[in-house]
C-alpha cells in the first residue's frame, strides 16, 4: 500500500522507506534514492505501517508545519503540487533550500491558524499532512478542512505536550479526537511509539 515513488530500500546497512530526490539532511543515499528515517518523520512511521494515507504518486498535498523540510522533502519527491506552510523564519530558511531543488514544492511563510492568508494560493488538495507543535492542533485541522477534497484525507500527528505538558497524553489525545470529530471521521488513530514518544498518528476523512 506504499505510494508509488516510495520504496523499501537497504542503504548503508539500514533498511527502510526511501524516495528519489536530492539529499537534504545528511540521510544515507544510493542511486538517487534517499532513506526516509522513521525516527525523524512521523509520516514515515505511518507509511511504514502501510496505513492508508491517500498519498500517492502525483497527489496534491498541503503540508502544515513543514519546519525545515525533513519530511516534506520526501513528500515532494513523489507527490504532485506540494504546498508547505511554516510559520517560523529560521526553519523556513532551510526549507527554502529544500524547495530550490523541487519545482513542485511551494514554501509559504504563513500561520496554519489563519488559512485565509494562504487560501488565495493553495488549491483543494488530496491530502493534508499536519505536524504543528502548537496548542489547539484539532482546531488547526478543522480550520484547514476547507482545503480537502471530498475524497481527501487528513494525516495528522498530535503532540501531547503541545496541548498540555502537565496532563496525561492519553487524556489529551482523547480530547483532540473528540474535537476533531466535529469535522472529520477518524479512520486510524494509533500511538507513534517507539519512534515518537507521546505522539498520536491520525488519519481522517472530511465529514
Amino acid at each position, binding site marked *: 500500500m506504499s505510494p508509488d515513488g516510495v520504496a523499501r530500500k537497504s542503504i548503508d546497512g539500514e533498511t527502510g522507506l526511501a524516495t528519489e530526490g536530492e539529499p537534504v539532511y545528511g540521510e544515507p543515499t544510493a542511486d538517487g534514492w534517499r532513506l526516509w528515517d522513521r525516527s525523524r518523520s512521523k509520516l514515515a512511521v505511518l507509511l511504514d505501517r502501510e496505513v492508508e494515507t491517500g498519498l500517492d504518486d502525483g497527489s496534491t498535498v498541503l503540508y502544515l508545519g513543514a519546519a525545515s523540510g525533513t519530511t516534506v522533502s520526501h513528500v515532494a519527491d513523489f507527490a504532485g*503540487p506540494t504546498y508547505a506552510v511554516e510559520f517560523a*523564519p*529560521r526553519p*523556513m*530558511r*532551510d526549507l*527554502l533550500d529544500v*524547495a*530550490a531543488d523541487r*519545482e*513542485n*514544492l*511551494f*514554501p*509559504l*511563510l504563513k500561520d496554519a491558524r489563519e488559512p*485565509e*492568508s494562504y*487560501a*488565495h*494560493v*493553495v*488549491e*483543494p488538495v488530496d491530502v493534508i499532512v499536519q505536524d504543528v507543535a502548537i496548542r489547539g492542533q484539532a482546531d488547526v485541522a478543522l480550520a484547514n478542512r*476547507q*482545503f480537502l477534497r471530498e475524497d481527501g484525507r487528513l494525516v495528522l500527528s498530535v503532540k501531547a505536550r503541545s496541548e498540555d505538558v502537565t496532563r496525561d497524553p492519553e487524556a489529551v489525545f482523547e480530547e483532540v479526537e473528540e474535537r476533531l470529530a466535529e469535522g472529520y471521521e477518524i479512520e486510524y488513530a494509533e500511538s507513534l511509539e517507539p519512534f515518537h514518544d507521546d505522539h498520536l498518528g491520525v488519519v481522517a476523512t472530511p465529514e
Partner: protein
Amino acid sequence: MTHDESATDGWFAGIDPGDTDAAQAAVRDGSATAPRDWPTLAAESGFAEREEYYRLLHEATMAATRAEVREREQADDQQLIHAIRALDDCQRVANELTERVGEWAGSQDADADVDDEYIAALAEREPDSPMEDRLVSLADRIVGLQEESRSLQTVVESTATSVAPNLTALAGPELAARLIALAGGLDELAKKPAGTVQVLGAEDALFAHLRGGAPSPKHGIIYTHEYVRGTRPEDRGSAARALAGKLAIAARVDNYAGEYRPELEAELDDRMERIRARENQ
C-alpha cells in the same frame, strides 16, 4: 471559457505572468475566504496553462518567502538589540539603586557590606518603621530588576542563537548581541570588514586616533571576550585581530547562509591555541 468571479481572489489576479515582484507581493499580502481550483482558474483567465502556472507559482512563493524570512529575521535582530540594551539598562540601574541602598543601610548599620546577598536579605527583612519599610521595599525592587536582568539574559541567549548561530557560538550571546547592536543590525554587521569589527565599541578612541596623536585602538567591545582579555598583553593585538576576523566571517555566514557551521569555532580555537602557545616559549 466562462470567467469565474472568484478568480479575482487568486494570487495571480491582475498580474502580468512575467512580473515576479508583483507576484511575490500578491503571495505575501493577498488572502481569500476559501480555496479554489486556482490552476484551472488561472488557465481560464488566461494567466498561464497548468505547467507554466506551477513554474510561476514556485518562482513567486520562493521569492515571497525568501524576502519575508529576511525581513522577519531582521526584525528579530532588532528585537535582540532592544533586549541587550534593556539588559544593560536593568543591570546599570540595579547597580545604581544598590549604591543608594548601600549608603542608606550604612547609615543604620555601619558594618553593612552591601552586595547582592545583602540586598536579597534586606528585601526579606521585616521593617519596623515606615522609613525602614521603604528601604526594604527598595531592596526588593532591586531584586526584581536583577531577576529581570536574568530573564533578559535568557531571551538574549535564545534570540542571539536563532538570529546569529555562528556569531553566538564564537562570541557568546551577550557579546554577539552587543556587536549586532553596535553595528545597528546583523545585515550591517555582516557588511563590516574585520578591522571595523575589531574596534566596534571603541569609536571614541578610534576618532582620537584618526584626528592624530592617540594610538590606534587594538580592540573595542571584543575585549570582553576571554580570548582577548585572557591573552597576555603583548599578544592581545594578534588575538583581537584573529577573533575579529572569525567574528566577521561568522556574521556573514549568519546573514547570508544562516546555517550553523561548527568548523568556524574549531578554527578559532586552533588559531588561539597557536597565539597562546607563544607565551610558553
